[in-house]
């Protein structure tokens, strides 16, 4: 009942050159991509960006249907944006539907906005499709590293995320077991008004939280037994390396972004 409805993460574990890139390269690339997308003011620029996205999708061996699935949640926003722009932009009149007038400029503007949204969603979801969550966490720790000086607890944040990722499946099993046990006692998690449903969750929440916090104490003991004492001087099993591939990717993207901004 829970397993089916919860899919956490969308990582696609296959072998490709995009998958092999350093997570830091990919995070920075996506940040840059999104910013560039907002700086572009000509249609041709979008073509270049769409080209880059297509290259990444092909190199990353991402099935088209995965990309399409990512678009479903924003369908409503795309339709809304297109309609707002088509109707509300002043300009040369094309059609008139009652009090609404659709203008040529409006349609152009609508196309512009829709392509921006489509590219945004497809490219950002490619980061999570091609990078394992643990690698992303590592990448975030490195990228936040410079901010340690102003008091950003980069190591603790990353360590916390890594532990959480490890324990999500465990807690999910636990939640499922508790739900079954409480349902056998007549608990109802599915029906009722929303206040009623929130109330019904309490027999699940109390045991789930208590067991999770007990686990936290055990884990702290286990970590201390292995001499964990914070981020300073801790060595790693897997060290991130920038390779030639990362340089090539960075160069290609830099060229692509400049082209998109200039045309």
């Amino acid at each position, binding site marked *: 009942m829970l397993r089916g409805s*919860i899919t*956490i*993460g*969308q990582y696609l574990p296959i072998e490709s050159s995009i998958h092999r890139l350093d997570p830091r390269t990919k995070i920075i690339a996506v*940040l840059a991509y*999104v*910013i560039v997308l*907002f700086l572009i003011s000509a249609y041709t620029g979008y073509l270049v960006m769409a080209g880059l996205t297509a290259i990444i999708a092909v190199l990353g061996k991402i099935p088209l249907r995965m990309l399409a699935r990512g678009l479903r*949640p*924003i369908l*409503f*926003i795309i339709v809304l*944006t297109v309609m*707002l722009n088509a109707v509300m932009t002043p300009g040369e009149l094309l059609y008139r539907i009652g009090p609404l007038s659709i203008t040529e400029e*409006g349609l152009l503007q609508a196309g512009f*906005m829709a392509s921006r*949204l489509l590219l*945004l*969603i497809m490219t*950002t*979801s490619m980061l*999570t499709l091609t990078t394992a*969550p643990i690698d*992303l*966490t590592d990448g975030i720790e490195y990228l936040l590293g410079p901010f340690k000086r102003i008091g950003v*607890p980069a190591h*603790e*944040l990353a*360590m*916390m*995320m*890594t*532990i*959480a*990722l490890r*324990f*999500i499946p465990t*807690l*999910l099993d636990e939640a499922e077991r508790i739900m079954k046990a409480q349902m056998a006692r007549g608990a109802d998690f599915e029906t009722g008004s*929303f*206040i009623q*449903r*929130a109330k019904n*969750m309490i027999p699940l*929440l*109390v045991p789930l*939280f*208590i067991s*999770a*916090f*007990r686990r*936290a*104490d055990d*884990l*702290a*003991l286990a*970590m*201390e037994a292995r001499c*964990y*004492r914070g981020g300073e001087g801790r060595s790693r099993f897997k060290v991130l390396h920038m390779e030639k591939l990362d340089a090539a990717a960075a160069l290609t993207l830099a060229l692509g972004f400049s082209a998109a901004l200039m045309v």
Partner: protein
Amino acid sequence: MDRRVIILTEMAMALALALLLSHFRLFRAPYGGSVTLAMIPIVIIGLRWGTRAGIMVGVALGFLRLMFDPYILHWAQYVLDYPLAFGFLGLSGLRIHRPWVGITLGFAGRFASHVVTGILFFAAFAPEGTPAALYSVIYNGTFLIPEWLITVLIAPWLFRRLDDNLPVVMDRGNSRE
């Protein structure tokens, strides 16, 4: 035991709980946005270990959500809608008067970040003259107000239940910032 390690592991478990609970939708708002119990673990960490710990769990939840369900419609959204919005919930650790004050402040902060993103979104995608601020307030209100209500009702109570039921591993008396 080292207090920092216990706080770290409790934060991690709360983070896992928050991520898990964010997939239990109690109610889905008409235009996207849903009401979940995901804020409860963040608030409880704030109450147990203070504002700094609460904010850290919130920010980490923001990063993980950004990883799992990226929903980027604007460049400023990386920060505003994710780490910052959830980070605010850590304000539950402020010990002003009663727990609900801090929780409400946290939700007010989260509401403000979402509203600002909404305004930026309309500025970037809708023609000029759209009443952006109004739309953004209504849209975010439809799911944040019910979520605030259930969090304020459940979290302080659950916090006390945990205190009564967990073995005392260490005195938290002077850890509250």
